[in-house]
């Protein structure tokens, strides 16, 4: 089992952990929405958002930099946004000629680029906060409360349940490949790329067959235990007054931030 790979939940007793999962999902999405609505270069607004995330980090007893340390996953994608620097009209900062491209860096473009990076960085952090303080099965159940089609939610639940099993299977396959891939001394090992790709493809086919057969067995086992078409949970996921209050408060704060950003 490789819980460490797939389980992002951290045990805790904070109010964030106790908050209803449905409410947490709603607030997270609204927070990201509010990020998207902040105008380019509104550093004060971004700063307030980040400060909120820091405080929530502390409130969840994660230490102030927990989400910060894990938030750099989206940075490679910033490459795609670099061209925003040259995309907008504005005051010219620098001009480059690079092959067929005539690049004019503008102040508006630079502002846009930095804002995009900051927005994505904030959004990633709040999403990390969500999965760190919510068990994933609860999160899936929250999706059902939010009126996602039950079938899709069930498929996601199965996916999460069997990632652990099938990734073990994959590691076994990879280990077996590794074990049979000795390179004799003074020889080039590994074969051609085409051959290597075919082996990987065969492994995918093999994994498919094992998964397919496993799903048969799973279904039979489920039938044997009285499966009637949908999954049940013992967690009631009631939304209490406290959750409603907190959600209202969070929405109020986000609206305040938006008013401040657009009118102030």
């Amino acid at each position, binding site marked *: 089992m490789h819980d460490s*790979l*797939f389980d*992002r939940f951290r045990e805790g007793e904070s109010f964030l952990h106790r908050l209803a999962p449905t409410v947490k999902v709603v607030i*997270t*999405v609204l927070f*990201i*929405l509010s*990020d*998207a*609505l902040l*105008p380019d270069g509104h550093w004060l607004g971004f700063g307030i958002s980040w400060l909120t995330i820091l405080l929530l980090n502390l409130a969840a007893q994660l230490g102030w930099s927990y989400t910060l340390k894990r938030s750099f996953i*989206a940075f*490679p*994608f910033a490459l*795609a946004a670099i*061209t925003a620097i040259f*995309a*907008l*009209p504005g005051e010219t900062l620098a001009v480059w000629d690079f092959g067929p*491209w005539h690049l004019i860096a503008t102040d508006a473009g630079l502002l*846009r680029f930095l804002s995009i*990076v900051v927005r994505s960085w904030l*959004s*990633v952090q709040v*999403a990390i906060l969500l*999965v760190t303080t919510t068990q*994933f099965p609860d999160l899936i159940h929250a999706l059902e409360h939010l009126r996602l089609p039950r*079938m*899709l939610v*069930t*498929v*996601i639940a*199965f*996916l*999460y349940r*069997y*990632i652990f*099993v*099938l*990734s073990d299977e*994959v*590691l076994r396959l*990879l280990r077996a490949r590794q074990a049979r891939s000795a390179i004799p001394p003074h020889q080039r090992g590994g074969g051609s*790329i085409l051959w*290597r*790709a075919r*082996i*990987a*493809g*065969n*492994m*995918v*086919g093999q*994994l*498919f067959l094992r*998964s*397919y057969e*496993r*799903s048969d067995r799973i279904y039979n086992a489920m039938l044997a235990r009285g499966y009637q*078409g949908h999954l049940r949970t013992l967690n009631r996921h009631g939304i209490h007054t406290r959750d409603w209050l907190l959600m209202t408060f969070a929405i109020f704060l986000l609206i305040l931030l938006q008013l401040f950003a657009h009118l102030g």
Partner: protein
Amino acid sequence: MLYSPSPLHIPDGFLSLAISLIFWAITLVILSTAVKRTETLDEKQVPLMGVMAAFIFAAQMINFPVAGGTSGHLLGGALAAIMLGPWAGMLVMTAVVAVQGLLFQDGGLLVMGANIFNMGLLTAAIGFGFYKAAEGRQRKLKLFAAGLGAWLSVMAGALFTALQLWLSGTARLDIVLPAMLGVHAVIGIGEVLITVAAIAFIFKTRPDLLEESESSAQNGRGWIVVGALLSLGVVLLSPFASADPDGLERVATDLGFLEQGANAPYKLLSDYALPFFRDSAFSTIAAGLIGILVIAALVIFLARRRSIRHTSHN
């Protein structure tokens, strides 16, 4: 960590609100159809789709070394659709993209509609369409069709990602489009090799599984048209847009997207919000629709001729 993010997962913040919501809407419409279509199947399908979603997720970890520390691995949309049928394949890919976004922050939440569309819906439609077109033919031809579909599905995902970034005002089209398509032309080859080898392996070991999925999707002829149209779009649009980004830019300006991208997204409901009612936009859309109808008629005509010849052959 084995799990490697692909450059198609757009994070939050990179798409404008308008584009995010438009693609959420498109994705939800298609998904609700997919749910309706699969609900009529027996209840055994649900655990099967769930385990298959985990399979695609796990299969994305299987890589092969290419050169210089890089490796090729699978996206899986085409493979899922070929093995499970188009609607189930779409649901499976949706679950995969959703978990990657929710659990690993690999792809954002507000932009998840676009991510599901690019990596799940497009890839499944194109992959299945091509495979279906080779139905009843020799195994070699089927594998060829599957490979072509897999490559085009990756290219379609890359094309749409580039277009969404550009329409959001996040990237310059004349740079991001060739870059995206160039990178994915190579990544797509890895996709082709793995998909084809996997299907060939299943042909060898459990041919009954593939025949089963064929007979269960008898009335899937429409997918050939869908796949052909989408990939025709990719094939026609990519070189055109790469060679003449100004042309595409002009269309988008007419449609009002670029103003939306250039202005902050909070101006969503200002004058620019309803650009579709302008004369120039109307004429552009009408021209586009007529073009699509002509192509669709052509493809249906060809498909019918082909199938008549095919049945007379038997």
